[in-house]
């Protein structure tokens, strides 16, 4: 038992490093370690290799890691909060909430609202509001499956509103928004990374404070209340952090499906524990590995056909959901 919790994270870190090296070196570009070092700390835009590494490879790698970790941790929070292994930011419509708010700020066409910071803010706000909607539904919908159906319906309802917005917008706005919805790890630039890293680590840091209530919540909400946990505060905090992480990822990469659902389930199976401190580490690492690995595969397929990240994760994620459903309902 103890071995698992020590060896697995180390192995996963190692795997992540290997995958990162693969990720950075896929393609025709050959470079030495010193070029790589220079491109970060000694950047010279006249050198085309450094330019490619600095402007494309590094941001893409980092955002893949952050998106994977962020969504996996959000998924874990949602699954324990709703006591439902099929919950996740995407199936519960929280991503779509972000999309709606981002769409609104794109469609207004006001330059201020299409700035990075405004996009993040609206994505966060959308995720948070939709999180609150789902939580208020969950108080009177007891069945797990029903809550998911409500989440999915909320998602498609919101998607329709987004479509209405799209048909009534100018071609310029439509283009930038449509590109955004395809989900992409390529739209982040090096200069945006500090802000993204700051928000991401804030989210991870804050989730440390949820470990204790999460651990008790696996016994059910009544039991954790009787152990002295203030559920109201906890639920709000949980939704807040999920909104922060999901909103961040959605703002920069578009809606990415199923990572938040498939990764936490796999993590639990792999680590065989309900200790959320360990699961938090596990989810961050496995989420990062999963998305970096997916992106390496996408890069390898690139010469033959273009695969948006959202499509790829759905192809892998949907069968996993079906598998869990069958296992649960049996």
């Amino acid at each position, binding site marked *: *038992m103890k071995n698992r919790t020590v060896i697995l994270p180390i192995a996963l870190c190692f795997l992540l490093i290997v995958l990162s090296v693969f990720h950075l070196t896929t393609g025709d570009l050959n470079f030495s370690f010193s070029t790589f070092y220079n491109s970060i700390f000694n950047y010279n835009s006249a050198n085309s290799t450094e330019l490619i590494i600095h402007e494309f490879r590094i941001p893409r790698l980092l955002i893949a890691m952050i998106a994977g970790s962020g969504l996996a941790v959000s998924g874990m929070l949602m699954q324990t909060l709703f*006591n439902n292994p099929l919950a996740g930011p995407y199936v519960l419509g929280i991503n779509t909430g972000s999309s709606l708010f981002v769409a609104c700020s794109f469609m207004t066409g006001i330059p201020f609202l299409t700035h990075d910071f405004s996009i993040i803010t609206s994505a966060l706000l959308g995720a948070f509001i939709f999180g609150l909607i789902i939580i208020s539904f969950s108080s009177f919908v007891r069945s797990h499956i029903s809550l998911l159906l409500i989440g999915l319906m909320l998602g498609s309802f919101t998607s329709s509103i987004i479509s209405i917005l799209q048909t009534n917008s100018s071609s310029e706005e439509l283009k930038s928004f449509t590109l955004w919805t395809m989900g992409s790890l390529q739209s982040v630039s090096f200069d945006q990374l500090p802000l993204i890293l700051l928000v991401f680590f804030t989210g991870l840091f804050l989730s*440390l*404070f949820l*470990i*204790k209530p999460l*651990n*008790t919540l*696996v*016994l*059910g909400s*009544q*039991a*954790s*209340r*009787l*152990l*002295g*946990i*203030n559920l109201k505060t906890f639920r709000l905090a949980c939704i807040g952090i999920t909104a922060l992480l999901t909103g961040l990822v959605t703002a920069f990469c578009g809606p990415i499906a199923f990572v938040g659902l498939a990764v936490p389930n796999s993590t*639990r199976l792999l*680590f*065989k*524990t*309900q*200790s959320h*401190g360990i699961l938090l580490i596990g989810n961050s690492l496995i989420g990062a590995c999963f998305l970096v690995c997916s992106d390496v595969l996408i890069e390898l397929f690139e010469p033959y056909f273009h695969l948006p990240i959202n499509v790829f994760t759905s192809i892998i994620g949907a069968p996993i959901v079906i598998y869990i459903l069958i296992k649960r309902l049996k």
Partner: protein
Amino acid sequence: MIHLKNCTIGYSSPLFSIDDILLKKGSIYALIGSNGAGKSTLFSTLTNQLSTLSGTITIASQPLQSYKLKEIAKKVSFVQSKTDYPDFLTVEAYLALGRTPYTNTFGRLAKEDHEIIKHIIKRLKIEEFLPKFMHKLSDGERQIMAIASALIQETPVLLLDEPTAFLDYGNRMKIIKFLKEIAVTEEKCILFSSHDLELCLEEINQFLYIDQAEKKLILANDLTKEALLERAFNLY
């Protein structure tokens, strides 16, 4: 330990009332009543999830309503009749959760917490179960673990909602005898609900029942089966 005085208990409309009942340390009480009489409502009230419609309840000479969430968790522990345990929750991790009201923000167990957990594990002789998963235990074993966790919570009051439901005769006997013993040795005030009339009449001599005619919670000693059936279930 628990003092109920001139209370009415219920959700929006009163289910039953209580004149004056004192539940003492080192004693065990069986709560008997038909379905829907208000046994669960009484537990909800005693765990401060529901307030009394009128009157006050004091636990450890402090009014129940004045307790904060964390404080009441140090006074009253509650064992639910059946909990669904998730996959991969080990007995060891489950028992540690009993210390939740005492641990810091991150839930880290202090040296003292480890000692208490160790003491209870030794006391109940459940060492062999520690690495096992909760959902793989039998119903009887799970009930023992739930009681162990409640003991680890170190509360003077221990409430159990039908601890013998879902168990076979041997295990029911074992649990009740075990609770009886704990009440004395650990100086607890134990109140449990049960539909196991025969077993309770045999083992327990203090009963709480909800008198169906008067809609009142009554504390009685050494009842006969007939008297209990008549008053609590309106039979005969």
